[in-house]
């Protein structure tokens, strides 16, 4: 594990995400980022971010609130919501992260699109895991990657998410490892 200072990555669900799904997300986070991952509630109410005109939630203020509330032990926090997220210039976002910061958020709302009835839960879980890792990757200063199989590849549609692997490419792995060394040394 990468946590000489006892840091953890905190996963904070704001919606009814099944425990096994959360545990799966946490397991992957630990494996990719090398920190212990814990599931702890942090923020219960996000109505402050609701834009009534758009009927969507503005993700940036939620990130600020998450970063403010995060305990010292939490190196990064990831919120999982089921509401539709947006930033002002865009119609919607799957998630958002503070690039090189502490907080990120991912929404299940649009990840539920185009689910085949046969394996709904399995596909949704996979998408959620990948997007959670993607947004957390941004908090570790990773930018979008050109490799379509890399977690950090920017997906335009859910079918692009389905095409991604749940691994970082070689370059992003190196960049992540550099960033983790920097974090642990700092």
């Amino acid at each position: 594990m990468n946590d000489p200072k006892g840091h953890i990555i905190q996963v904070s669900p704001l919606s009814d995400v099944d425990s096994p799904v959360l545990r799966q997300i946490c397991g992957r986070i630990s494996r990719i980022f090398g920190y212990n991952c814990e599931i702890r509630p942090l923020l219960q109410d996000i109505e402050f971010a609701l834009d009534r005109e758009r009927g969507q939630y503005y993700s940036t203020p939620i990130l600020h609130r998450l970063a403010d509330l995060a305990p010292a032990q939490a190196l990064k926090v990831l919120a999982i919501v089921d509401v539709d997220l947006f930033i002002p210039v865009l119609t919607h976002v799957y998630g958002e992260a503070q690039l090189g910061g502490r907080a990120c958020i991912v929404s299940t709302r649009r990840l539920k699109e185009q689910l085949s009835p046969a394996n709904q839960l399995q596909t949704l879980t996979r998408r959620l895991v990948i997007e959670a890792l993607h947004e957390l990757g941004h908090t570790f200063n990773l930018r979008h990657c050109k490799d379509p199989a890399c977690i950090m590849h920017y997906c335009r549609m859910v079918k692009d998410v389905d095409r991604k692997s749940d691994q970082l490419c070689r370059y992003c792995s190196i960049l992540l490892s550099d960033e983790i060394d920097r974090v642990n040394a700092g």
Partner: protein
Amino acid sequence: MGKTKILIVDDELIMRESLADWLERDGHEIETAASGEEALERLKSNRFDILLVDIKMEGMTGLDVLKQVKTTDPDTAVVMITAYGSISTAIEAMKNGAFEYLLKPFDPDELGVLIEKIIHYQEQGRENLFLREAYKDRTRFESMIGQSPAMQKVFDMIRDVAPTDSTVLITGETGTGKGLAARAIHTNSPRSDGPFVIVNCGAFPEHLLESELFGHQKGAFTDAKVTKKGRLELAHGGTLFLDEIGEISMRMQIDLLRIIEDGIFYRVGGTQPIEADFRVIAATNRDLKEAIRQGAFRQDLFYRLNVISFEMPPLRERKEDIPLLAEHFLRRFSQETNKPVGRISREALEEMMLYEWPGNVRELENAIERAVVVGKERRIRPEDLPIFRGDAARSASDLSLKAVERAHIAHVLDKTRWNISKSAEILGIDRTTLYSKIKRYQIEKPS
């Protein structure tokens, strides 16, 4: 290539920030401006690939910004953003040269696709420029060839210097392949995805070279009908190859020194400083140290250019490479001319090995090209080679008796301007014999 530089111009902080955060994740370099005036101020000292401009702003509108940008930097792609989807404004923006028009809020997919499209379009534009450059400059030898120790040393040098960003000075006689060496450094450098822009400093008079290098603003001089980018700007992200650097004027030397030191320059007639990031490789066949002694070349510029330097060996010092080079050119020209000239005769090769090649590889290349074109057999014979035409470069001790005779006759004819009677008199032979020798040696009267 370097990062794509994007300037977001919007008077709403929230829009600027969210858009900047979003685009930054794609690895772009983002700057923001809160008004049209601030944007234009930034554009004076920075160059951007893309401008995202909100149409409706306090003070200067987005359309005003667009018009201004299109006059000063027509290659910058401007995307207009508005929450007021009025078709008339959109049409006006497009008429004024906007690349695209987005209605707020826009689909994230739409934005990503648009940015990629612009980058692709701009890269293609640059590529076309390079291709045109490459075509004009179509090098007479395609790649560096050589097994000789002298060339192996050059290859090692290129491999060593390519990954650095240091300025390189390549010296050597005409035709030794200084340009190829420069290109090889570029191709093996981290800038290989960027442009390789060549400036032949000896080919332009001073005022034209200035405009060629720095570009000019519309109206800077009588013929400046449009704003034109200079080669320094075209080289952004890549390598600038200054060939025949020893030929530039003292005034241009001062300008060049400043550019190499600061990376900033002005277009002719322009007031806005332009920043460009490029590596400089310079080449010369002149002895720059001697030029410094004579006061014809600035010492400070020389030291700036001479960070790393190496010399391209003349062909006479690597004669072992001649068969390899000759074969290479033979294959190339027989393919290009569609003539089935398959080989070089032993005699022709022997002659080539004895010759001094004052014009170096370029002369060898020209000789093979000519031999392929004019040759009447499937192999190159000594008489197909132009090197037997009155060449002074070859030392007499290396020549056969026939070659000496041919060279001497050609020399006398040349001296008498092909006055046959006078030439026959000098040579001590009668006119009929002279005619017969001219025919036998295929000595041609210059046109």
